[in-house]
């Protein structure tokens, strides 16, 4: 009947107000106010026993002064900002630079023979990624034939200057290696999940299993 629709609408909004599961899945960033129940869960205690054992903290939490750090659940395939780059795997072939639609990767190799690692005949001098212009399409990762470049999993690269957004080779070398599993199914197969904080070394991220010492010796012997 005419006129009932607006009243039904009031019911819907009230339902959404009172039912907690209908709330938007919002997580305060970077940390959120914790209720005593949350704190009890952190300490793996019953809420009521927590209230009695830590009365001061509970009151603080009730007033809203206690915060805990919590992130939105994020998938391991998330294409994040901090690129994970493995010096040991990179040959400096510049496939990534070539495939980048924006041309923001700059690679310079040094053939003078300084800083050589074992088995290398040249060294990577420059590996700049200008993430200020990057659109995180991941084509560079898709293009890398040696699994040396991976998307990262973080998103907290806010800086005050644009120049700081250029990730240079030193920063890439030092950075935490938390590669995203984007276009790297082998990482998923090995149970790697950057969101849970697992890091991956250079010998764990390849498409192929790392050869054992015997296999390696055989391969060298065949040559």
């Amino acid at each position: 009947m005419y006129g009932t629709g607006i009243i039904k609408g009031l019911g819907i909004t009230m339902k959404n107000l009172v039912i907690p599961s209908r709330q938007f899945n919002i997580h305060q960033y970077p940390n959120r106010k914790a209720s005593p129940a949350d704190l009890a869960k952190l300490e793996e205690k019953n809420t009521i026993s927590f209230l009695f054992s830590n009365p001061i903290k509970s009151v603080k939490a009730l007033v809203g002064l206690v915060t805990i750090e919590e992130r939105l659940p994020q998938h391991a395939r998330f294409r994040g900002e901090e690129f994970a780059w493995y010096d040991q795997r990179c040959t400096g072939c510049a496939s990534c630079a070539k495939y980048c639609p924006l041309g923001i990767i700059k690679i310079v190799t040094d053939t003078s023979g300084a800083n050589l690692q074992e088995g290398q005949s040249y060294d990577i001098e420059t590996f700049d990624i200008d993430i200020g212009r990057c659109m995180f399409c991941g084509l560079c990762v898709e293009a890398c034939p040696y699994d040396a470049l991976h998307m990262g999993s973080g998103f907290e690269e806010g800086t005050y200057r644009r120049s700081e957004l250029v990730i240079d080779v030193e920063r890439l070398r030092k950075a935490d290696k938390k590669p995203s599993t984007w276009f790297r199914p082998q990482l998923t197969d090995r149970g790697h999940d950057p969101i849970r904080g697992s890091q991956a070394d250079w010998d764990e991220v390849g498409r192929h299993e790392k050869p054992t010492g015997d296999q390696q010796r055989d391969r060298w012997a065949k040559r």
Partner: protein
Amino acid sequence: MTGIRTEPITINLGPQHPSTHGVFRLRVTFDGEEIIDAEPVFGYLHRGTEKLAETRNYVQIVTLTDRMDYLASMSNNLAYVRTVEKLANIEVPERAQYIRVISAELQRIASHLMATGFLLNDLGALATPLVYCFRERERILDLFEMLCGARITLSYMRPGGVFQDAPEDFWPSLESLVGDLPHYLDELESLITSNEIVLARTKNVGLLTDEQAIDNSISGPNLRASGVKWDLRKADPYEIYDRVKFDVPIGAIGDTFDRYLVRILEMRESVKIIEQCLEQIAPGPIRANTPFFIRPPAGEAYSAVEGPKGELGFYMVSDGGVAPYRCKVRAPSFINITPLRDMLKGWKMGDLIIIFGSIDIVLGEVDR
């Protein structure tokens, strides 16, 4: 008594205005509150996508299509990669087609949710239905994050398939979402569809007759709201749309309310399509063996899909090189605003906003 002298007043609605859905400008002439003339002005978001495409290779252009209709990247990707496949004669594996259809239909739901939410926002509902729509859309975006690591600019599809198979935890989440979506839509409908204020505002407002719609080559939900039963998924089935059963909802008279209702009904149909795809999908390869630098033979191809906003087509000319010689986009948003002036004339200020909102354009696509 001699009449009071009145003058028409010209207002520049936009480019900065809360409900122009981007940087759209309407030069409207009002007689009091009544519209006597309206002239759309656009191009504020022109980025030269079509020209940029000529300097990129066929895979890199996928990232450009994401940014045209940024609320429906999947559909854009699909339309583009289908054109390239037609141009280069690439066979797409079946599983890839299913995944593509599933993600395109999810994207359609997400886009229609946004359209509905913003229409209600334009009606002045203070963002409540909008946030409800966003809440459901968020779950779809979570699924996209599982699929391809991004939420908006997806770049998921590649000529010849999709770049990576869906992860294992994608399928249970998709099933639970498909189970929940009809309830979400029920709730949304009981908040909006029978609301008398919405009815009073939208019924018989902004009429677009079927003749007018066809004359202006409108497509998508706007065309179907005018009563024209035309859907590319049925009329020219692409991918695996001929294997799924779904209905094409149409509107009765082509007013703002019909345009809203057709979108809601279409979302329900999309849920049905996804359900059927989930039953039919089988394991298999997900990408044809295509090189990164595709070199299609010289020639031209046009291919269109039924995007959330309408017929989204790409026309590409190849000269045999790694980059297209010419790329032209038939953007549904751009063509759908053609009859805007006729639709607006005679209505009031408040109607302008909702008529404009019900057409559901995205300025990234209008200006490209």
